[in-house]
């Protein structure tokens, strides 16, 4: 998809058994992984986290249909996520009272339709502009919907939101989905389906033209395509899958409230997609998993984990805008030639100074935090099991030394890395 170079033999008339297997093998592997994971990580926290990851993956992939595939930056994607959740919750409540035979697995589809309906309405208005204006409009629309949530209380339930009970729907194969493991498998199944569908979408004519409009909307006009129409359709696809994610979230949390629309929600999916890498299909998957993990784990380690998150984002925008996926794929020529060892060794040498530098920075930040907001709790704190007081000079000097010293040493390792790459003697196949 998109910027990834795809090796393919289009002249093959019939796919051989080998290409069939290689094309479908990744999906089978992912399905198997999803099935097996809960057996490896059995705790309640792990199950919840994996469920959240599944939801985030769908949400991030839907976001990347806009960002990575069609080049549209949206700051308000949570709108469709939230609306999907609300539609799902109302549907579940209605079905539970009516007694309509609609089993729970159908609910995310309702969420998707909710997201789609509003994507059509809002998309028609938003896609009249592109680029920066589009981004600002998405922000404005997000505010509009978020604020409406408090006004239209009957639908949005005011500050408390709308709750539901997922076990009250008609049971499927005797499953009432009360247990987390059952919800996990539901989410995993939908995640697999959505991943597959969105991947297939990238390969359709519309999907390809999304890339074309991303790269050069002007030129796309001259090959017969209306760029606005392409963007609008991409927006609808994106809104649908965001709604599915919202529906699954509604099932998982059994509530839909205005937090689903929040700027944090929109911001997080943007961060996750970008950090994962918007140029490759699997990038947002990596980003969603990583961000979900960090959100749960980091918040136990430090109270200001969001600050670190934001700093990571800025660093990546500045130095690695291709994201984690892009960084990995950058090493692809090395895998093929088995020249990875030298480069990895260089990275291993660069790692300790980098870690020292980062530790110094983290220490300074944590100490500043302790001194300001946490001043009431006194100057004592611990950092990686070392206790000290922030009102002394020594910890500050240590932090400064670690930061500066670490940076200097880190800088010294850069030529080593460059040399390792050079010695990998990559014949630049594409550039002449």
């Amino acid at each position, binding site marked *: 998809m998109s*910027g990834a170079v795809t090796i393919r033999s289009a002249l093959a008339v019939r796919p051989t058994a080998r290409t069939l297997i290689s094309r479908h093998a990744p999906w089978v592997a992912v399905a198997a992984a999803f099935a097996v994971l809960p057996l490896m990580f059995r705790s309640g926290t792990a199950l919840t986290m994996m469920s959240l990851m599944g939801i985030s993956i769908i949400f991030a992939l839907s976001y990347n249909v806009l960002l990575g595939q069609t080049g549209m930056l949206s700051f308000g994607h949570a709108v469709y996520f939230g609306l999907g959740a609300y539609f799902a919750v109302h549907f579940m409540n209605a079905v539970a009272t009516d007694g309509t035979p609609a089993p729970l697995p159908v609910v995310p589809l309702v969420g998707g339709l909710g997201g789609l309906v509003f994507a059509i309405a809002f998309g028609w208005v938003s896609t009249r502009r592109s680029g920066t204006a589009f981004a600002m409009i998405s922000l404005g629309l997000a505010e509009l919907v978020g604020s409406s949530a408090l006004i239209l209380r009957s639908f949005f339930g005011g500050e408390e939101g709308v709750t539901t009970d997922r076990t009250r729907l008609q049971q499927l194969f005797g499953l009432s989905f009360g247990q987390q493991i059952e919800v996990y498998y539901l989410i995993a199944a939908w995640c697999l389906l959505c991943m597959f569908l969105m991947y297939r979408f990238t*390969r*359709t004519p519309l999907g390809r033209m999304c*890339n*074309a409009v991303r*790269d050069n909307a002007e030129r796309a006009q*001259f090959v017969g395509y209306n760029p606005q129409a392409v963007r609008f359709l991409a927006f609808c696809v994106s809104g649908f899958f965001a709604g599915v994610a919202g529906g699954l979230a509604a099932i998982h949390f059994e509530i839909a409230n205005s937090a689903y629309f929040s700027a944090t929600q929109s911001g997080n999916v943007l961060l996750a997609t970008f950090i994962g890498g918007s140029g490759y299909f699997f990038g947002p998957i990596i980003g969603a998993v990583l961000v979900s993990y960090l959100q749960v784990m980091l918040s136990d380690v430090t109270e200001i984990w969001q600050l670190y998150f934001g700093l990571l984002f800025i660093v990546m925008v500045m130095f690695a805008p291709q994201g984690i996926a892009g960084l990995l794929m950058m090493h692809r020529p090395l895998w093929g030639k088995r020249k990875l060892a030298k480069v990895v060794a260089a990275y291993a040498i660069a790692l300790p100074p980098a870690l020292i530098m980062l530790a110094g920075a983290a220490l300074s930040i944590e100490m500043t935090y302790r001194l300001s907001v946490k001043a009431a709790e006194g100057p004592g704190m611990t950092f990686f099991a070392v206790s000290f007081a922030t009102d002394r000079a020594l910890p500050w000097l240590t932090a400064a030394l670690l930061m500066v010293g670490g940076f200097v040493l880190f800088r010294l390792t850069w030529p080593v890395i460059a040399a390792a790459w050079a010695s990998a003697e990559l014949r630049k196949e*594409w550039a002449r």
Partner: protein
Amino acid sequence: MTTPALALSNICKRFGSTEVIRGVNLTVTPGERHAVIGPNGAGKSTLFNLISGLMKPDAGSIALKGDDITATAPWLINRRGLSRSFQVTNIFHRMSVWENVRAGALWAAGQRYAFWRDADKAREVATRTDRILADFDLADRRDAPAGILTYAEQRALEIAITVAGGADVILLDEPTAGMSRAETERVVGLIRRISESRTLVIVEHDMSVVFGLADRISVLVYGEVVACGTPAEIRSNPRVREAYLGEEPH
């Protein structure tokens, strides 16, 4: 009298208070190779922009194969069979060369906005794309991202995208700009081949290309067509010589 492939009637265009195109009349017969030449700033690219729908004329009308296309959206004009290339290379730089050409062929092949089928499965589009890549000598670069091609290769790709859709009327805007003699000759041969059964309108500065390729030439000076005729007529036209300050075609 056959319907002209392209007919411009009294086209006027002004930017602010400057009249860039003043009353241009131009007729191109089907199958003709028509060159538009003129000094820099004469308005040649603007003329192309007006014809292809990127800009709206302030006055006058444009007809494509008899149908009025004045002030029509560029994609609609393209769907009716007119395709153009750009002076400054305008390709899809992150997509592969193969994808670039295929993008040019998708609509014409009826693929439209289909989001339910695999684009790779459309055999005709694939074979057509392969054929064009072979014609343009880009087959060995098919999987390279278009952005890293050499300048000449990108210019070739630019033209390849333009003809991929099989348009009847092709507008080429300075296709050989910045090319060496050898590259130019190759591209000219290419252009001659692809315009075999089509109508070609080409803007060019290289006189050898113009005189070697064109059936008829229009000379545009300060937004007006000062002369229109066969290469021999143009070569001996005193107004043309004057406009080019006595420049001899080389």
